[in-house]
């Protein structure tokens, strides 16, 4: 099972998670810029966070054989803090960078006028940088928020095919399906969706534009929920090919619209891709077993 987790906050996760994810089949992921729990109070903390997403976290993932991409945006909650909104002026610099595969996650928290404004700015940036947009739906009054999100997207001019509306559930998925946007489901241990409910939605709506993610972060969450959804699909009678479509080909198709996905295996992880054990006569294994012999 090969897995592309299209939404996970690895900054909050441990190396054990990376190891388990690789073992479960995760080979690539997208880490959307997110709220850190503790509110940020100035632009500098955003910039260091974005730099870490593009630098340190990408390197850290590669050490575990996983290709890391990110999406960049001001989080909806912080759109309401004038001190944080200043970061909008810095976003163009980041949206030009390698590994940034969408604008996001943007969207609504409390549906304030400030959030409206920032969402529109994000969608305009997506058009300017020819990037898809990852738009999340609010935790409270989700149906209203989803409807409003779709209206703002329609006004923005960004095609629905370039938009992933995330954290959907049974109450709001149909309007997203009808609009033609991508449907994201965050599978969580005890909030949001679970793997059996999402399988039921797949049985009802089919697999077109369906995307499943773990959205694992600093809260109670599970970075293996993508794999668990794959197993739930198999138990429900879906084929291996169906699982591959939902867990790999669909997210690759969506984020691939950025032209910036790197899905080549990380050197040294896949035996067929492993380079020589020596480089100019020096061992590069440094005490590790050669995978060539495995």
């Amino acid at each position, binding site marked *: 099972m090969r897995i592309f987790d299209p939404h996970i906050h690895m900054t909050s996760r441990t190396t054990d998670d990376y190891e388990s994810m690789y073992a479960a089949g995760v080979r690539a992921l997208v880490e959307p810029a997110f709220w850190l729990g503790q509110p940020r109070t100035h632009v500098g903390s955003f910039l260091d966070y974005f*730099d870490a997403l*593009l*630098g*340190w976290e*990408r*390197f850290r993932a590669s050490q575990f054989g996983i290709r890391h991409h990110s999406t960049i945006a001001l989080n909806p909650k912080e759109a309401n803090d004038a001190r944080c909104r200043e970061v909008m002026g810095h976003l163009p*610099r980041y949206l*030009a*960078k*390698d*590994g940034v595969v969408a604008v996001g996650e943007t969207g609504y928290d409390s549906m304030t006028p400030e959030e409206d404004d920032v969402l529109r700015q994000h969608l305009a940036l997506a058009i300017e940088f020819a990037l898809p947009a990852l738009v999340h739906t609010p935790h409270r009054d989700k149906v209203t928020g989803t409807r409003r999100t779709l209206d703002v997207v329609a006004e923005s001019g960004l095609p629905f095919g370039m938009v992933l509306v995330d954290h959907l559930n049974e109450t709001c998925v149909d309007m997203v399906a009808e609009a033609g946007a991508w449907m994201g489901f965050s599978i969580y241990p005890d909030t949001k969706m679970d793997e059996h409910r999402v399988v039921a939605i797949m049985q009802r709506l089919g697999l077109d534009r369906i995307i499943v993610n773990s959205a694992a972060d600093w809260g109670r969450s599970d970075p293996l929920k993508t794999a668990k959804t794959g197993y739930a699909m198999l138990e429900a009678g879906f084929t291996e090919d169906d699982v591959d479509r939902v867990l790999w080909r669909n997210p690759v198709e969506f984020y691939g619209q950025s*032209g*910036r996905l*790197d899905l080549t295996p990380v*050197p*040294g992880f896949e035996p067929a891709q*492993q*380079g*020589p054990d020596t*480089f*100019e*006569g*020096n*061992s*590069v294994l*440094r*005490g590790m077993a050669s995978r060539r012999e495995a």
Partner: protein
Amino acid sequence: MTTDAWVLGYGTNGFADHTLDDALDVIQGCGYRAVALTLGHPHLDPFADDWRTRTEELAADLRARGLRVVVETGTRYLLDPWHKHRPTLVDRDAEPRMAFLARAIEIAAVLDADCVSLWSGVVPDDDVDDDTAWTLLVERLAALVPIAEERGVTLSIEPEPGMLVETVSDALRLRDEVGAPASVGITVDLGHCVAVEPEGVVGALRQAGKLLRNVQVDDMKPGVHEHLELGTGDLDLVAAIETLREIGYTGVAAVELPRHSHDAPRLAGASIAAWDAAARAAMPARHPWTVEAVASVTADPTRAPRLFAEAGRAVGRDPLSPDDPHGYAGTTDDAARAALVEALHAGGADPSVVRALYEYGDNAERRGVLRGFDALADADLTPAWRETGLDLARDALRTNDPALVASAMGAFTARHLDDHGWRHGVLKLVFMGVPLSIVRGLDERRDAELAAMASRYAEERRAAGRSIPDDIRLIDTVPQE
């Protein structure tokens, strides 16, 4: 001079009318950094009573001069005054040749030479057929291998036109038949390739690939085994140099003109000039995107940030060498970004522009800035440019991304970074598992303090029962003054 990974040298058999001391003076004076030492008259008699003392003195002299050395064994009439090169490894009686090669191995060990280069010999017409000769050759090479391994010496088989081992294919087959030991490599004479190699010089060098331990440099005409001055035969020297880069050759490439001793000083000067001109001509062509981006940045430096961010998507991110899967020695996008930094410098940009590219860059962009400073290592930098380069290198050396740290240990830091910072950079690469072969200026800058740091690190690994990186040996001894 070029900044390629190999070291250019000159063969002493092209200086038969000079004493060895004088020959080394001229070779060194021309800018060569290695010597191919032909054992025998007139320079170093391997069978003289005082051979060991003389060899030890020579070793000290070569170290003092900073000259690398390979040992060549092609002296004429050394073993038989009546017959050139006889006996060889394919004669029925090869005792004198075997004794000579065993001595050559001992000498190579004392000199810490890259290798002992040897060849098969022409099959004698009289009493040995090709099959018998091959059997004799395999047996004798097999007998030399343990002697060489005991002394830590590499043997390098040189195909010669007209000999039993005539092409690289023959040499590889011979190597395989003695069990493909790591201690046996291949010598390629570029001129010979013109004369006899079916796939030419490019094919022959590629075929030798990672087994290439020694290169001889000369020109030649197809089918004629006569060593010619560079530029007077049919050798495509640019293609040869491109191929040496492609296969990542890091050994000695020594000019081999044994019939030109009467004109040696002029030829030594002309040969290094011809080589350097070809090396410049062989610079990898810039990607069309890079050419356009350089022009764009030259016209308007404010375009640099956007182009810097796009470089990886535009030119790819492959390692420049296929044997360096992590790209520690540089990647295609590194090269593109370095060209932009060079263009900014050439256009008179303020170094703060480059500092911003680094500070606002992701790790790949930061590598590109550091590689750009490497490209400027030998340039006449203003203090502000130099300090900017040092600030950014120090910043990179604080990170934990091996590729970033590796790119901070290039030509710029080798030239400009303080000793303390540079030593810690080297040790950090060991710690991170990055091969030390990517460090520029390692031989020139390593010192007693670095050796002591490396020894303490090795001791710590040993105490923990952990493996010790092979290439720590490159720094854990004190270099001889």
